[in-house]
């Protein structure tokens, strides 16, 4: 039981850091300056 919890713990921690690492690197490459914000009605 403890081993499973430990492995889950590692996975959770690495995923949490991994998501932010991905956002800071891969996501960041596609980010540009906000030029315009519009509100549009859904069709």
């Amino acid at each position, binding site marked *: 039981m403890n081993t499973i919890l430990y*492995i889950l713990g590692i996975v959770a*921690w*690495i995923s949490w*850091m991994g998501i932010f690492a991905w956002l800071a*690197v891969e996501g*960041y490459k596609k*980010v540009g300056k906000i030029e315009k*914000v519009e509100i549009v*009605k859904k069709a």
Partner: protein
Amino acid sequence: MEEESILLLCAILYLVVTAGISRYVGWKYHPVKKIVDYTVGGRQVGLTLMAATFVATWCSSYTIFACGETSYTVGLSGMIWYPVGVAGPVLATFAIARWVKRKVPAGWTLGDYVGTLWGTRCRLIVAGIVILAMLFEVTAAIFAGSSLVHELTGFPVILGALILGGTFIFYTTLGGLWAVLFGDLIRVCTFLLIGLVAVPILLSKAGGFSVIYNALPPNFFDVNAWGIADMQNFWLLLFGYTAGSAAVWQRVFAARDEEVVEKGFLTFALGWFPFAICGGILGMLARVVTTEEILPAMAVGTTVDMLAPFGLEVLLLIGLLAVITSSADSFFNAAVSTWVIDFEHKTFRRGSSDKVILRDAKIFALLFGAFAIFCAGYVRSIINLLQYNSYIFMGIVFVICASVFWDKMTRNGAFIGMIGGLTVSLGGYVLQWPPLLATLLSVGICAVLSVGISLIDREEMKITYSSPPEISKRAFSPKTVYIMYAILALIASYPLWTALIWGSEVVIAPFWLTVLIMALGPIGCLALVGQLVYYGYRDLKYVKEGIQ
């Protein structure tokens, strides 16, 4: 002259002289002419001041006393987990900061960013929360500083509050962000002295590392005694607190470019650890110098009382005052900037000249400061104020993160999500729910409401971006960023993988490892000095030659 009077005189002298220098340097090199100078330093802040202000703002009296308290109670593991616990949320916020600086290079405040996306309702909610939260922060800091002076000298708390509050209100009100930044640099240098001078002296007075290692029971050196399992809520709260901090966002917008944000954040994530370890050492020494059971919160004070010669007591007092005022002035300035931008410049006084708004800023600053000093006279517990602050941020942190990473959130979704999150987080605080439950519920409710309403909303957001620029050569390479996160992930999960490999949760650190961990306090201080000097060199080069 009695020792108490000399201590008091030194404290007052330190506060007045540093306030004078902060104001003078700010006035001489960066006079405030426009709102942009006052609130975001003209968006021209360089590496040295950015790195120093991040460390100074985030190191508070809590850093020293809470780390000392934990080390006194649980031993070596307390010293490890505070720095790791702070570095995690800061590195997570790094991703947010990178995006925000790219998306809104000419931003102002957290409220302004939210308002740009979702309109005045959301702007005013966030700005209101920021001002309230900053009021608690400033009140808690004034109370902590004046109580410290009262304990050591018997000086009345309210008079201490007036002097302490009066000094940083003076230079922050007149000089805006630049005065705060110069003040923070002076204060970082002051509390680096504690790590480089006071802690080694106290360690040697206690008999050195081997005396400590032999005097305390082995379980005190169990690196897993306290840590990852105890820190879940701390991590979540601190992430909300960091990602939602108006002072952090203000600094991101004030940076002259993306490189300053990145390098500032690296120092931000690492700069806390030397001070946390130094606080931990002072706390642990209390176990050695007295066999009596003392209140853990008094551990640092006990070590200083029993070991420090008078000259060192003076240094420690001004160091602690530096730690307290450097956080207080940043939060104070963040509150004033939020008022100026979100309530005046962008909402109720649109079109007014900079001169009029700057005059209003100074009036608001004086009123806000006076009210904070008044409140400090009535505070009974700092912890309650700070807890409340953390909870309030948890109510809105999901929406703030979504504003950066998810473009589909609508005005109604953000507004209702924030109201729902705040209601639950405050309800949890008032009804005293278990902390982790209250935190998770407030984030969860905020997430469900904001995403759900956004998806069924009749209106949708259409955000147009310019094409992404080339990533500057001075920016961190993808490899560097991944390595940074991987190192932290590896360190923070050590209790898990060591338990898996060694088959035991109890890992007693040998003598050499204990020495290494404790030595990281003063060594880290030295590294921080080196980093600030290098950044100073880079900034001078930038100013003289315009080198990118």
